[in-house]
């Protein structure tokens, strides 16, 4: 049973709705004194890219195509009902109308509250991304072993 107030989240998904869940959990926990770590891997790397919007980031032509298709926070699709991009727009509207924080606000809050952001080394390698491609708040690039060490004693969730 974990006793320390520590929460580690593995952000695997790059979907708008799932990333919103990641950052809601992260900021909520951080606000009540938890130490929070988020390990961005695979599709999740899209959320921490510095270049907003689509860009041909990547080491070779294949990864550049992925870099282009994964255009950062503004263009993340919903995991269902995406309707070619209408889904996130509808949800953002509903969230704003109900005074619920948007994904961008949650990411900013996470940075302010000192949530530790980490990028997965393996996924970065495959997608041809470098540390400079990410926002400066990303604390470090790690692999599974280090992540397991730093999540020790707390709870870990996979989203």
């Amino acid at each position, binding site marked *: 049973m974990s006793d320390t107030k520590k929460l580690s989240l593995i952000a695997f998904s790059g979907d708008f709705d799932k990333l919103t869940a990641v950052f809601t959990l992260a*900021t*909520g926990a951080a606000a*009540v004194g938890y130490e929070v770590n988020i390990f961005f891997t695979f599709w999740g790397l899209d959320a921490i890219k510095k270049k907003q919007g689509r860009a041909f980031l990547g080491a070779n032509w294949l990864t550049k195509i992925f870099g282009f298709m994964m255009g950062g926070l503004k263009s993340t699709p919903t995991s269902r009902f995406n309707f070619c991009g209408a889904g996130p727009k509808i949800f953002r509207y509903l969230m704003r109308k109900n005074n619920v924080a948007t994904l961008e606000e949650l990411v900013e809050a996470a940075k302010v*509250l000192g949530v530790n952001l980490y990028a997965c080394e393996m996924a970065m390698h495959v997608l041809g991304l470098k540390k400079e491609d990410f926002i400066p708040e990303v604390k470090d690039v790690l692999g599974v072993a280090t992540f397991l060490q730093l999540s020790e004693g707390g709870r870990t969730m996979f989203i």
Partner: protein
Amino acid sequence: MTFVKTKIELAKLQAGDILEVLLSEGEPLDNVPRNAVDQGYEVLSVEHVEGTTHKVIIKK
């Protein structure tokens, strides 16, 4: 989320400063005062403003 924003605003203040938080009843009203006290802040008052809006005054 209300407490997240409250916490961020409180972090910007100096010791002894006062923060007024307008929030909705239900979960925010239950959570904000309790979490503020847990985190070591002082809740000076909780008042009903109108409709579902309440005001919580917190001292750092």
